[in-house]
């Protein structure tokens, strides 16, 4: 199976989900991306990305328990699948190989 190529935003979403291990759902995923990249993330864009990644088989979701602060609505937790991991590795590898030799420029500022 050919490697799945990830868009920049999709890559960020998968990495954030990986960071959060089993506890990743839309709210902390978004907060994490914003905190680490310093760029605002539109909620609508995040949901569509999550949906698309699940459709590509990079993410798997499960419903959690409902809580009061959520008005009785359950959380939808995401975990990265094996093919998701493969896609991350492929993208990371590609980007890393593109960056190789540029370390002096990239890490200066």
């Amino acid at each position: 199976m050919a490697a799945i190529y990830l868009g920049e935003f999709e890559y960020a979403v998968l990495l954030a989900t990986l960071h959060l291990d089993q506890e990743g759902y839309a709210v902390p995923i978004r907060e994490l991306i914003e905190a680490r990249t310093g760029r605002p993330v539109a909620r609508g864009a995040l949901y569509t990305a999550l949906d698309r990644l699940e459709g590509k088989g990079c993410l798997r979701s499960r419903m959690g328990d409902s809580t009061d602060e959520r008005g009785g609505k359950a959380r939808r937790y995401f975990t990265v699948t094996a093919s998701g991991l493969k896609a991350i590795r492929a993208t990371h590898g590609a980007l890393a190989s593109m960056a190789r030799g540029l370390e002096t420029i990239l890490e200066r500022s």
Partner: protein
Amino acid sequence: MTTAPSRLAERVLAFVVRDPEWRDGVIGDLREEHAKLVGRIGVDGARRWHRRQGLAVAFRYGAHRLLRRGTPPRRWFAAVAHESDGSMAAGLTRDVLYAWRSVTQRPALSAVIVMTLALALAANSTTYSLMDAIVLRPYRFPDVDRLLIVVSHPANEVQRLLDRDSVARGDYRDWQGESKTVRQWAAYEWWDANLSGVDIPEQVPGFRVTPGFFSTLGVTPALGREFLDEEAQPGRHRRVVLSHTLWTRRFAADPGIVGSSIRLDGEPYEVVGVAPEGFQVPLGAEAWAPIAYDAAQWQDHGSTTDLSVIGRLAGGATLEGARAEIAAVVDGQRRDHPDTNANRAATVVSFTAGMADPGAGPLMAVWQVAAGLLLLIACANIANLLMARGTERSQEYAVRLALGASRSRLFGQTLIEGLMLSALACGASIPLAVAGLGMSRRAIPESVIRFIPGFEFIQFDVRLLALTALLGTTATLIFAMVPALQAMRSDVSESLRQSGRTQTPARGRRRLRSVLATSQVALALALLFGSGLVLTAADRFTNGVLGFDKHNVLVAQLVLPERAYAAAETRRRFITRVTDGVSQIPAVTGSGITSHIPYGPANQMRRFWPEGQDLREDEARLVNFRRSSAGYFGVMRIPLVAGRQFDDRDRPGSTPVAMVSASLARQYWPGQDPIGRRFKLSLDGGWVTVTGVTGDVIHNWFTQQRDHTVYLPFTQDAPFAVAFTLRTVGDPDALAGDLRRAVAAADPDQPIASLTTLEDLVEDRVGGFSFIANALGVVAIIALALALMGIYSLMSYLTSQRTQEIGVRMALGAGRWQVVRLTTGHAVKITVAGTLIGGVLSLGLGRVMQSVMFGLVSTSILQLIAIVAVLATAALLAAYLPARRAARLDPTTALREH
């Protein structure tokens, strides 16, 4: 105060996110974040945040799901629907789906737009249906446009109302003999037939008609035949054609009725036919009998001018041709019969125009114009709302343009959105229109309906549906064009640069919205003023100065049959027996009779020759003519101005006396004592002496004139048509049974044509007018509400756009009132401009209405000022509310907003 998040946003989300697990996840996430925000930025701020985010997520997620297939991977921020190529049909389907989403995305806004448009459409279709039924096509038999009506009138008098029963028999015969443009002629005259020999005697509205009456109208009887030529002769004329309603009501729709005999006016009449269902010409007719005059009577050009004449045009002939031809014949008659015809002219009109209710046309036209104005106001309002929405969406447009959408595509899509709104509105307007028509039907009293041709055609039909759809589409083109153009002109780089920051609306756009709001105010003012005029008039007709006291009076109208009551003495005895009978009733404080009750269905006029003025036949003026009892004036509380009442001295054979109305006395004997003066009511008649002068009475609500009136005592010559009047203590309706018994005691065969209180009689008479006046009032109120909504939404919008500026000003020390002044200044300008333009419009409208409505209404500057004051106050209030909200803002919140 509740801390709940925006329900609107959650509903939209629940609608857009179809997958239940996703739905819970998304809605729950937003609630979780909302709950955190409540503590940080307060309840209101958190709810606003939630609404904004919820709707944004719904939009992006919805677009994503809908267009998932074929969508390339997203770039960092462009999670917006991409324009894809495809067939026309697929593109259209996509546009429609997109439009539907855009409509449902803002349910409150869409509902307001749809209801506004639906109301305006319903007002228009209701009015048009009434107009079509009553004015445009009240009669729907074959080739009705080939029929005409000819009336006679004095050549030197302007005809305000068409007097149909006005033709002399000799004149009719001349026209019939000499005309070539008219293929077939028919004439008819009134005949109130008393139906007896059945359980309850009844007065049947009937007409005596010339043979060929039915075939001229293009109608054949449902049963039997119409009259033969030889039946139009005295002695052989006792034949009758029954209306379908009379046949079913009184004769149980007996199919074998033709050939049997019924009793009319105490004589046997052979039933020769039954008219087809729904045929009622002249209006209200329930029986037709042959007209019976001998050859000499048909030559009479003289004073008996009470035929109504209809004709059917010959093939190829036109109404204009008939007009010219009849005019020539009339010229000949002037030469041939100088004694009678010297001052006589004829007018030819189409059947539909001639038969229409004289007041209905202009009134309905005014109503239709009002409904049209309402639609315009609604369009202005909707355009205004859509423009506000378009400004909100300018980013969306810009992104789509940036992604390669063509401008024409955006234009088309905005139009499709508009069409979708108007399709919804058309659907919503149908039940409204049906309800409106139902209300119209119920609002007009039975007694008036009888005199409204075409009333049975008032209904909601396919034609009306098509008209509504057409109007809706036209309206859409008007109101959706503006935002569509706005979409097309979106400036990509400008809109994108503004992303996330307060958008200052383009100057031109703001000006356009102000113009729309101003025109709404102006149109609403004109509508309010116009409907106010008609309402005031309706009130004046029912509650104004009538010249008599309509309260606590019971009225019974009947017509005595000619044969049984041929002698005046028998009529007088009948009247006296009934009045004596009712005087015994304890609750009756007075009783009297008259031949023609004010506001009643009929009138009688005579020419008036005062002694000492040598007037020719056609120079003498017409005056209202009544035969009354002395008690009548007391019951009606018509004051005695001078002289004496009728009394026992006025008997058959004693000096003929009369009472005259004050206006008549002033006209003929100005500055002199009218008592003892004499006059004649026909050239060869005897002198009548004035014994008393009474107050003036308005007989015809429509003309509202204090007509000159002559009253003769019934004791000297009793009338056939009698209205008994009783003044009662308490509810007059309670005495109806007693009055019936008194009539039955005097003559068991005598039916009462109408038994009602005088108050109901007056109100019913004006009922149709009052209804339209009230309907106009409702239209005007809706228009006012729409105009206020327009100002309110514009002001809310402009204020919200300036929230940051307001925050800065307040942080720098501006007071609340300064903020209010700042934000309402614009509304003041709109209101002032709107009322100025509206004032001019109103005065113009008032002039037009005055002239088309026969001076029924009169413009009043005072009324205009009052309406302007109300409108201006309401408009400023509508502008103040958003301003106050702005002034209450916490400066820090204001600065953080957006």
